[in-house]
């Protein structure tokens, strides 16, 4: 019988553990050094983020280690929580109530059931086609036509970003990759690791060197220095982990670059929506980070591109 965790996964997890310990140490040192009021606030936020990272890494590892439905259930819950934050900020009306019930309690779980069943043909079309047609119909039956298209479009958009896109991460487990059977969990680990480490590195480079803002009206913390530094470092890290993936080193480099760019695009887009709604964060669940959706905005954009690029690159048919 194959052990639940293979040697390479242990290496990856060990690496993450090492990073967390290093970050915690750096946080402690910084905490002892700061004097000014604004620097103290930054370091406190940094340490809150590091503590939250411990929890998120623990949850993710446990989800990954529970063989079988673990990752699907984990990402399903993440989608549910993210969608909840998204719809809370969306000005829906009473006429959407029944549609929303479908969205939360039928469509979202069903999407993850289909991913768990590895039913590619249906999980890749259910939300873009069937949910897309069902939601406006249900809202129309409810009879409220005010702002009808805005409401319907926003619900569909939330469903696409928080559920459909995110579900492509655990869907990686359904890919049949010749010579990589039973090891797909590492591919999922690779995706999440590169995307999240790119977020962290962009934050660090931005704090250290950031000057030229990319889109000051949307995300004042995103700078060209942070973006390029994070992009470069995350791509290097991703490339150096090629041995854990089914990719060649060059493929791993291309994939890392692609998901890092998509992650950046996700962060920026989701920020634009937050600014439009006049909030800083989507929620309050993760201390130092904001809500679940604030943390996974980059995964939302990176996961479907990574999924389809992998299929294309490795020549996988359903």
């Amino acid at each position, binding site marked *: 019988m194959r052990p639940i965790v293979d040697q390479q996964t242990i290496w990856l997890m060990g690496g993450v553990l090492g990073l967390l310990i290093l970050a915690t140490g750096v946080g402690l040192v910084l905490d002892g050094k700061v004097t000014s009021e604004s620097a103290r606030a930054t370091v406190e936020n940094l340490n809150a983020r590091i503590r939250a990272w411990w929890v998120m890494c623990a949850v993710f590892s446990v989800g990954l280690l529970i063989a079988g439905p673990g990752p699907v259930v984990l990402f399903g819950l993440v989608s549910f929580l993210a969608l*909840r934050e998204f719809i809370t900020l969306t000005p829906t009306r*009473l006429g959407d109530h029944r549609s929303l019930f479908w969205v*939360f309690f039928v469509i979202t779980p069903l999407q993850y059931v289909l991913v768990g069943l590895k039913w590619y043909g249906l999980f890749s079309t259910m939300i873009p086609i069937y949910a897309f047609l069902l939601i406006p119909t249900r809202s129309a039956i409810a009879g409220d036509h005010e702002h009808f298209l805005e409401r319907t479009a926003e619900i569909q958009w939330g469903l696409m970003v928080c559920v459909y896109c995110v579900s492509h991460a655990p869907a990686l487990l359904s890919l049949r990759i010749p010579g990589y059977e039973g090891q797909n969990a590492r591919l999922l680990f690779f995706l999440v690791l590169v995307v999240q480490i790119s977020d962290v590195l962009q934050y660090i480079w931005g704090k250290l060197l950031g000057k030229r803002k990319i889109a000051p009206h949307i995300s004042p913390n995103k700078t060209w220095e942070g973006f390029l530094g994070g992009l470069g470092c995350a791509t290097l890290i991703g490339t150096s982990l090629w041995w854990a993936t089914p990719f060649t080193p060059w493929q791993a480099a291309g994939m890392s670059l692609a998901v890092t760019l998509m992650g950046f695009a996700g962060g920026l887009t989701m920020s634009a929506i937050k600014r439009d709604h006049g909030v800083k964060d989507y929620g*309050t669940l993760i201390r130092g980070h904001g809500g679940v959706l604030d943390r996974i905005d980059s995964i939302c954009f990176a996961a479907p591109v990574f999924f389809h690029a992998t299929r294309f690159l490795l020549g996988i048919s359903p």
Partner: protein
Amino acid sequence: MKAPFLATAAKILTGASVRWVDCQPDTRQRVYFANHTSHLDTVVLWAALPKEIRDLTRPAAARDYWEAGRLRLYLATKVFNAVLIDRSHVTRQNNPLDLVLGAMGERYSLILFPEGTRNPGPEVGEFKCGLYYLGKSRPDLELVPVYVENLNRILPKGEFLPVPLLSCISFGPPIRVMDNEPKPAFLQRARAAVCALRRP
């Protein structure tokens, strides 16, 4: 045993975040008065209170609603320890004010929805006068305004299936009925205190 479980379940279902704005949790006798938009208001407001305060707080609730069905009656009497009020047959003998004052005694705080009935939107309706008479008869009570947000979207009036959005319960600075304050002026002030807790 069941009460903490139900309180936790209510908080998870409604994703309730709790804010205390210029007001601290306290076990002293208070009247928590809030806007009313959903059947969930009572349970979520009650659940938002810290446990030791929750045990000393009784919601004032409509008898016709909470006595319809065994589960509701069980929840009202055994879990929330609600003060059930007759909305239809108010006489001198069963004056709700005396009933509430008797139920509070020297020990319990009260949850009250002064609008009297659920309001469909986020707007706050006109207050009925019960709060004024309570404050008049017991000047020692702190009257704490509470704004419950989004429960009208989670379980709107007329719907029976909840949608799991995030709600927020805000407690504001206590007010009192001032000497010689006319009833309409006080009720306006109380209503404004609830509205002021709405987030921008």
